[in-house]
């Protein structure tokens, strides 16, 4: 019934109103991918400016804007959404659920992120982008002229609200929606990392919410939180930002750990080595991640006791991380390894991430940090963990789950070109930056004099960036080629181990005709080893309850987007901005009210239709 119903409406309308986690996953992936390209372009502009000493390609304030937007875009608008894309596409399938716990909220989370990202990037066309760095330290951010930082504040506020909702949604999904037999210690590791990451989002993002509110009040309504002349204290911003900001880096890297764990196990044809140690390490990293924020502030002058405590806590994180590294290596040990593109990215990830981890421990040594602080050594470190860690992980996940998300197999030959150009380019770009930092090159400066002797390493770094660009372009070509003439694949192209490979391709929109019965870790593999072609069902075929599509999330997000504009221009435009605020918040609240007012019981798919449809798929 509902299929016929959906077919009457346009495809566009369907995507704008969808509450299906698989479609929302694709929306996240595509928008995150778009912002990744924007952020990548900004990175290339930075590398062109730094290619030679005393370049004038991109100087002064414009350089600050590009640099700020590169960091902000990559973290909030590229990495986070792509992670949410995978969580949406994979987690409900891995736990044997038909959707997430709150499909409506899921859609709302996406649209808030999307309009927040658009709002932030519109700053380029409306008088200049934010220029105070992605960390927006006060008083630089509070005294920055123009509306750039206002775009940063409101854009991130709206996008951040969406992220927080996503976090709550996945926590409830994983706790409440697991199939029969899917105990916590049988959950695939990607689901575990998604779970811990969601917990970190829940407890870290509200701090950012408040930080952004304080910054907004300071800039728009003349509050005095950070202004020392009025008794304020700029260090408060640093604390609030890093209380959010440090858990944020674990929010980013943990799902990558999850992806690597899935890929390495699948392509080694072995059960993940030390599963329970992996789970424990994940939880421990998440826990310790909240106790290390001040290692970003060693040079602030918090005193030797505080610095020592935070230094030790930071070094302690290396232990669970080391556990993970060894477990991946031992998973491969004695395995029947296939070097598919997905696995290449995973195997490339391991030594790269170790290097980022080693510089991390170096930076954790507080006295030594006085030398490294704010130098290119730090830049090299966090690009090793975020690009060499997270982005390699995301590429791995893309090649691995592409058949599940789109029903098509990415081209393996192009994939290998993608890997090698990107991987070599990455090391070429960022390895020299360690030495640039030790030679004294500060981060965020737009140029350097010739006689400092920083030219040749910077030039090598820029060549590396060209290679990374080529790698990314090869990936885009791969996507185009795949969708133009890619071959359709079965539901289980990799000989998978977990539940997401137990369903046909394309994935039915109700996911599982019958909820599967889970009999252990690597649920599908257990059935395969027992000689079963399919999962054992936990229920007879029956009517399936599904949520209704809704356009309210889109309108609600547009409302907050309009209000965001109002707040941005309130300090200079006055009355028209106030109207935008009232109208925008009015639309947002009205949508919330309508959501509460209109009874929405979802709909049922009937057993007979389901059986007919299922036969069609098998034939």
């Amino acid at each position: 019934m509902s299929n016929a119903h959906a077919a009457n409406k346009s495809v566009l309308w369907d995507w704008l109103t969808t509450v299906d986690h698989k479609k929302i996953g694709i929306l996240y992936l595509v928008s995150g991918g778009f912002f990744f390209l924007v952020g990548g372009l900004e990175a290339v502009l930075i590398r062109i400016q730094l290619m030679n000493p005393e370049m004038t390609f991109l100087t002064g304030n414009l350089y600050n804007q590009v640099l700020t937007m590169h960091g902000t875009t990559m973290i909030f608008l590229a990495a986070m959404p792509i992670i949410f894309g995978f969580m949406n596409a994979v987690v409900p399938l891995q736990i044997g659920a038909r959707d997430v716990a709150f499909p409506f909220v899921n859609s709302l989370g996406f649209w808030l992120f999307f309009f927040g990202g658009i709002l932030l990037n519109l700053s380029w066309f409306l008088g200049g982008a934010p220029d105070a760095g992605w960390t927006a330290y006060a008083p630089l951010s509070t005294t920055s002229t123009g509306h750039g930082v206002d775009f940063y504040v409101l854009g991130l506020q709206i996008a951040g609200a969406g992220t927080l909702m996503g976090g709550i949604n996945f926590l409830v999904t994983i706790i409440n929606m697991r199939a029969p037999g899917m105990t916590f210690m049988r959950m695939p590791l990607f689901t575990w990392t998604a779970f811990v990451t969601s917990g970190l989002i829940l407890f870290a993002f509200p701090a950012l919410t408040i930080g952004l509110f304080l910054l907004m009040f300071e800039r728009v309504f003349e509050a005095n939180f950070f202004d020392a002349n009025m008794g304020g204290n700029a260090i408060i911003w640093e604390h609030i930002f890093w209380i959010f900001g440090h858990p944020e880096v674990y929010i980013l890297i943990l799902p990558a750990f999850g992806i690597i764990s899935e890929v390495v196990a699948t392509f080694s044809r072995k059960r993940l080595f030390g599963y329970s140690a992996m789970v424990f390490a994940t939880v421990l990293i998440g826990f310790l991640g909240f106790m290390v924020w001040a290692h970003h502030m060693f040079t602030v002058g918090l005193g030797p006791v505080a610095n020592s405590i935070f230094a030790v806590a930071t070094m302690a994180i290396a232990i669970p991380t080391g556990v993970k590294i060894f477990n991946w290596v031992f998973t491969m040990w004695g395995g029947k390894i296939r070097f598919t593109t997905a696995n290449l990215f995973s195997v490339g990830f391991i030594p790269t991430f170790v290097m980022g981890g080693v510089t991390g421990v170096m930076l954790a040594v507080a006295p030594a940090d006085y030398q490294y602080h704010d130098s290119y050594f730090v830049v090299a470190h966090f690009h090793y963990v975020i690009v060499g860690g997270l982005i390699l992980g995301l590429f791995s996940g893309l090649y691995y789950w592409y058949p599940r998300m789109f029903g098509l197999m990415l081209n393996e030959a192009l994939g290998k070109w993608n890997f090698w150009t990107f991987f070599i380019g990455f090391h070429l770009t960022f390895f020299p930056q360690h030495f640039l930092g030790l030679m004294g090159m500060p981060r965020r400066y737009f140029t350097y004099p010739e006689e400092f002797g920083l030219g040749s390493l910077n030039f090598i770094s820029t060549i590396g960036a060209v290679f990374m660009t080529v790698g990314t372009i090869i990936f885009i070509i791969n996507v185009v080629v795949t969708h133009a003439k890619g071959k359709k694949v079965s539901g289980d192209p990799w000989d998978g181990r977990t539940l997401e490979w137990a369903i046909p391709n394309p994935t039915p929109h109700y996911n599982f005709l019958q909820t599967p019965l889970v009999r252990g870790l690597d649920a599908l593999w257990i059935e395969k080893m027992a000689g079963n072609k399919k999962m054992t069902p936990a229920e007879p075929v029956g009517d399936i309850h599904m949520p209704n599509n809704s356009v309210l999330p889109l309108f609600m997000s547009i409302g907050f987007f309009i209000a965001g504009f109002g707040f941005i221009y309130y300090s200079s435009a006055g009355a028209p901005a106030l109207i935008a605020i009232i109208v925008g918040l009015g639309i947002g609240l009205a949508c919330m009210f309508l959501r509460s007012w209109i009874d929405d019981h979802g709909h049922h798919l009937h057993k007979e239709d389901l059986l007919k449809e299922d036969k069609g798929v098998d034939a």
Partner: protein
Amino acid sequence: MDVGERLTDQNFPESPEKATLEGKNKFLGFWLFLGGETVLFATLFGTYLGLRNSFGKGPEASEIFQLPMVFAATIILLTSSLTSVYAVLALKENRVKQMRRWFFITLLLGLSFLGLEIYEFVEYVHEGHTFTSGAFGSAFYTLVGFHGGHVLFGCLWITALLVRNSGRGLTLYNAPKYYLFALYWHFVDVVWVFIFTVVYLMGKVG
């Protein structure tokens, strides 16, 4: 049974707010949301504690705080928590009329609290304690104002619920909605207890 169907005393489940998967999800999701809200207010409290003696151009806290009025506001809000408990007790026994009456009283108490708070703010502004008079002023109005905003949102929420469900009995669909409001209201109350202690009592004697 359909989730929109009016519950009778015969088929009334033990916990109507958690009798469906949707209800269970909402229940857990809302508890988690309150966990996030705790961090939100903790950040505000932290900021306030860092700035509470930086008066700038404004008057000092001990000069302006009027404990009797704040005490009255506290009693009103705590009482509204009690009335929402009575409402939830009625909800659990399918006594719809009583439940709605207790929620209505909760709403009235919430509105009185808001009235007192607005009156208090207006007084402070007259005495030179404003949002821009110093770091203390900014931190005070942000923390207390965020709480007031939560009370206002709660009042709008319960109003919408009461109007929408007037003449309708309890169902498995609306029971979780009532229940979640009560959870929210308790949370807002607990935050006020901390505000009363950290802002007003410590401002007077600390």
